Every structure is written in C-alpha cells, then in structure tokens.
C-alpha cells in the first residue's frame, strides 16, 4: 500500500540498487554503484553513515540489504499496526503511523532549509543513478541520450513520491512521471509545486493511492519504477517489491534506495541525526525497519 517518501540522509550513502527485467520475471540483478561518482553529497552532512557501505563497495557506497525474514517481527509496532490496519487483503505494506509522520511534514517538502534538505541534496546522487542506469540498460531513445533530456519517451513510476522531490528532476530530464503516494496532503503539495513550472507539470501526474491499488488499475506498464527512501517505512517488503515489479514492462528497471541496517547507521541516522543534531524529527526512522544489503538482494532475486 503505498510507499512513503522518506527523507533519507545523503550522508548515509543509501543503498542504490537497480535491477533489469529481461522478461516477465526479473531474473538478473545488477547492483549498481552510484554512478554519480561523488561521495560529495556528504558535503551536506558531516555525520557520514558510510556504515551503510558494505565491504563490497570500495567507494564507500552503501550496499543493498533486505530483511525478508524479519519483516513481520520488524519492530514491535509493525505487527500491531498490521492487525490494526488489516484490509480485506491478508497482507498489506501500508503502515498508518509511518504515513502519519509524513503527513505531518507536508509543508516542509519544498522548504530548502527545512527538514527535507537532505532529500534535495540526495537528488544529485539518485537522479544521476537513475539516468545512468536507464542509459546503460539501453531503454532510453538513442537520439536523446546526449541532449538535455535523455529520458524522453520513458514512463517512470515514483512510489512514495512525497512532495515530488524526485519526480520533478526526472520530468525535467524528459520522462513522463507518475508520482504515487499514500498521503493526500503530499499529493496536494506536490501538485501545487509542480504547477509553478509548466515544463515540469506537463510531464508529471500525481496519484493518491497505494502501490497495490495502482498495480491493479494501470493499463500501461512502466519503463522504470523508483522507490527511493521508502523501504524503511513499509511493511511486507517482499510483497512491496513484488508489486512494484509487476508494474514494470520487460526490459525495464527498478531503482531502490534505502538506508542500510548496520550499527553504524543506527548511530548515524538515529542517534546523531535525530537526537543529537536534530537534522530530522525524532522518530522519523525506526532502525528495526532498515533493510540490510544481503536481504534486499535476496528479495529482488526471489521476485
């Protein structure tokens, strides 16, 4: 049910993973290191939770992670919430408390000095990742690759788009973007902001809803699906990823970014960022919901 746009911290070097689907079932996984090439997003924050970087990543970029086995025991709250928010479906990825957190900060999405500044800074990294990933997977149209709008002709879904922080750059790069979020306030804020620039607003469509609902309602599948800083806020991650994957057309890609589940990220993202430096409101992240690299890879392979 919907992802939540979470303002991850750029210094956290979130896990950046993309997979390409050759057929209906995604069968290959390629973990892409952030091709933005800068740990420069760290310039925003000095508490660098490069702890997210696994031993694999030589450049200090975070590794992927997943926690398939833990999803139900993930934090004491989630199982309670699960039963509280039980839909007619037996499983759901929607967590009311998580959504409420973001509803509360609807005003600060586009305040560049506010709580969402890390997400804006993160754009440098994740927009480059998505752009490079799509160019390399050759789904982009040849005639546009070298120009100012390399993603022209592509349809991208941003699950948990929040205020549209990632949607707008992708739209400027030429893609037709659908932004999906489970909080109505976020969708209104996103629409309002996009309307300020006609070049942007004509390329974005915002939809209020959950990923499960959306997956059932779409006619056309997407060239790419992005769920950035969302995984740490949903329940039933394997279901979430599966549902996302169902909306991708053959040859398309999925891009996930999230915070790695390590001790260092606990220290960095929660203790320092929330409690000490007050960079984020306390309670934004629940460490138990972080996904480790191995688990995420495993989940992606499974789906």
């Amino acid at each position, binding site marked *: 049910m919907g992802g939540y746009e979470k303002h991850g911290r750029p210094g956290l070097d979130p896990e950046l993973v993309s997979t390409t689907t050759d057929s209906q079932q995604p069968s290959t996984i390629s973990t892409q290191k952030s091709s933005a090439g800068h740990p420069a997003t760290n310039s925003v924050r000095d508490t660098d939770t490069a702890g997210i970087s696994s031993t694999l990543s030589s450049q200090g970029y975070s590794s992927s992670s997943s926690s398939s086995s833990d999803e139900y025991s993930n934090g004491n709250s989630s199982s309670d919430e699960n039963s509280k928010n039980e839909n007619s479906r037996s499983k759901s990825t929607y967590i009311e408390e998580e959504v409420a957190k973001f509803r509360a900060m609807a005003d600060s999405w586009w305040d560049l000095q506010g709580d969402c500044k890390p997400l804006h800074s993160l*754009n440098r990294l994740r927009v480059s990742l998505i*752009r490079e990933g799509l160019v390399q997977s050759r789904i982009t149209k040849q005639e546009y690759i*070298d120009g100012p709008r390399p993603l022209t002709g592509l349809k991208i879904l941003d699950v948990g788009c929040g205020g549209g922080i990632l949607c707008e*750059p992708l739209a400027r790069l030429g893609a037709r973007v659908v932004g999906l979020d489970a909080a109505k306030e976020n969708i209104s804020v996103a629409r309002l902001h996009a309307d300020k620039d006609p070049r942007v607003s004509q390329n974005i469509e915002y939809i209020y809803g959950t990923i499960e609902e959306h997956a059932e309602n779409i006619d056309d599948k997407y060239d790419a699906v992005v769920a950035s800083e969302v995984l740490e806020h949903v329940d039933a991650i394997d279901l979430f990823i599966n549902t996302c994957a169902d909306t991708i057309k053959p040859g398309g890609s999925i891009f996930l970014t999230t915070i790695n589940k390590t001790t260092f990220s606990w220290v960095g993202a929660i203790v320092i960022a929330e409690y000490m430096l007050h960079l984020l409101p306390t309670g934004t992240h629940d460490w138990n919901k972080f996904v480790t690299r191995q688990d995420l890879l495993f989940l992606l392979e499974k789906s």
Partner: protein
Amino acid sequence: MYLSSRLSPLLRASRHLVRREELRGRCITCKEEEKREKRGEVEHYDVVVSGGGMVGLAMASSLGQNKTLSDRRILLLEGTPNKPWKLPEEFTNRVCALSGHTQKLFRKLGIWGHIEGIRAQAVRRMQVWEACSEAMITFDEHDQSEVLAHIVENDVILHALKEQVPAHVEVEYNTKVKCYDLPSDLSSRVTVCLHDGRKVSADLLIGADGAKSLVRQTMGSQYLGWEYDQMGIVATLQLSELSNDRSSLVWSTTKEQAQKLHQLTDEEFTDALNRAIWDESSSNEIIRTVHERWMTLLETIAPRSGAAVRQLPPSVCAIVPGTRGSFPLGLGHAVHYVAPRVALIGDAAHRIHPLAGQGVNLGFGDVATLTDTLQNAVLIGADIGDEQILHQYESERQRHNVATLATIDGLYRLYNSTAPPLVLLRSLGLSAVNIMAPLKRQLMAHAEG
C-alpha cells in the same frame, strides 16, 4: 564567505577606507506596475546575461554552444550601441594578457584562431626589476614549456567574440536596464525592467555588468573594496628607432603624479617614463651590499647554468601619438557571487590591480566554471536558478579568486614602499624565488588559472 573574511586582517591594516555597498535596490515602482500589467506581456528567457563586454559575450557564447544547454533561450543585454569595427593600423592602448586557461576557453568557443589571425603577441619571457636594488626575477620557457601569455587588444577580443555568438542567442545592443526585480527563493522568476518600458523574465540572471554592477547592488551583496591611491596610465610605445615594433605600457603611479604626467607632451612623457624606469635614486648602499652578499650565497646553492642573460630594463624611444589614457585602480570583491536565480561573473564580482595581468582572466575563469556548473545542473534535472547548485560555482571561484586578489594586493603593498627594511626584505625574497624553479612553476600554474 569564510574566504573573504580572511581579508579582514588586511582591511584593518589598510590605511584606506573600506567602502561597503549594501544597497538594496529593489524596484518598487516596477513591482506595482507589474501588478497592473497583464500576464503574457513579459517575454521569458531561461538565461539573461546583463552586460555585453568581453566576459558577458564569452558567457553567452559558452552557454549557447553547450550541447546540454542547447535548447535554452538566452538573451544578452548591452547598454552601448554596436558600432562596426575596423582593425586600426596602430595598436590600441587597452590590452589584456591572456592566460593559458583563457586560451583554452577561446579555443573551445572557436575564436582563438580568429584572434591569432587578427593580432596577438605571444609572451615568452617575463622579467621584473626591483627599482631600489639589483634584485630581479625572470619567468621564461625554461620554467615551463608553454608560452606564458598572449597580449591581445581588448577590441580584437570583443570583435572575435561578437562574430562567434551562436545564432540562437539573442543579443540586444543599445538596451539599458532600468532595474532588476530579484526573487527571494525559487518560487518566482527574475524580472528585468528595461528603459524602453519592456520587461523580460528569466530563470537565471547572470550579472556581467562590470565593477559598478547594478545586479550586484540589487542583490545587496556585501562588497569589500577600496581604491588604491593610484591611476593606471596606458600607452603604446616604440622601443627602438630601428624597428616598428610596438610595446604596450601600463604604468601605475600616484594620482598626483598621473595628473602631472597628463599635462606633458609626448616627448616629455617619454623622458619622464625613461627616468622612472632607470631611476636608481632610491637605492641604498647598505641594501646593495647586503643584496650582493645574498646573491653570492644563492649562487653557491644554485649556480646559474650557462649564460643567463641579465636583461636590462628597456629604454623607450617614443610614444605613439594619441594612445595615452588612464584609469583608476582599486580592489573589490563581492562576498556573495550568487543568490537564488542570480550569479555574478567578471568585474561585477571582483576587481584587481593590473600589476599581474590577472583581471580579465579571472572573469574568463568564472565563465568556464559557471558553464560547467549549469551543465551539471541540467544533467541532474535541477532548476538552473537553484541556489544550492550556484553555490558550487561560487565556492570554486572564490577559492581561486580570493587567493589571487589577496596575493596581488599583498604584492602591491609590498612594492609600494621605499622603506629600507621592506626593500631589503623584498629584494632578498625576489632573488631567492628567482632561483627556485619549482616555486616559479607553481606561481605560473596559479596564474594560468
């Protein structure tokens, strides 16, 4: 900002007044007029460059030729009319020393060949003489393989730039700006009010409007600067009776002296110039002796290889008539180069003493860096007026510019004095640096841009 604050000890020590410009010239009249105006009457551009001098033209060309920025609407506004230009036979007196980086930028813009084809002189050797002692320093091709610089007339550069502005970049001459309306954040655009009543809006305004920049004043950017009590006198010289070769003069002297020189005829001026070059009256016996001992010491450390010719200062034969001019000298630096949707380049951002020929090269360096910054902005899908992105340009350029400004100012103060201790210090220092090839290479590398 912290880089500029390092200038503050210098400020306190300075005898001159620090002039702080904190004008906030937001145009209130225009704002009200705008409310009454219908929408759609304002023409919108992605980038508006204000100022059609060398740096402004280079900026417009650089943006227009960039592949990633190729679909942007660019407008250049220049207040003076566009006069047709013919290459004069005699050299004009306003020239620049173009560094290696500037040459690279010009090659990229496709104008270097054109400039060389018209008139440019490569500099292969630079020598600096100390007036109060025998100290001197030489930079030549032994220190580095490339040419040190090229001397080119300002008009030649302007002409070459005008010819190469891409066709889709709109250039409006004889268009003066009345005022600017700058947004406080990204939610609105820049509005430029022109004297002829028209308005233009922009996603990004680039201020290339010179040392008295109106863009900078409207931004309210704190401007740290002071006038040196000096004028720069320019002229074209003939050094020898036997040849028709020309040389360019920039003579920085006190305002008083400049006034006196202004009254002289060309012959008297030539005499005065020669006297100034050859004047040894301020040299001191003690300093001479100490310096000689020092040179002997240096010889033992780094013996001169082969015949190192000590070139004597030149003698001026005559001044080319009608080429004398002068301009005031000063230093200036804007604390902030950028604001939401605005960026300053060239003299609008910084002003420097001409003693090291760095001034316009700093401006061209700004052009190259800002183009790269904007290209990167487009590639990550950002708004080109985004302040976070423009700050990258500001940081990179301030790092270089402030270091240069501080050094040149330091040199100016050091050489402004005839007090024996200072003279001794700088003579010994100069001679020492002269034998240190790696240090000289470093200096040249920084001067390259």
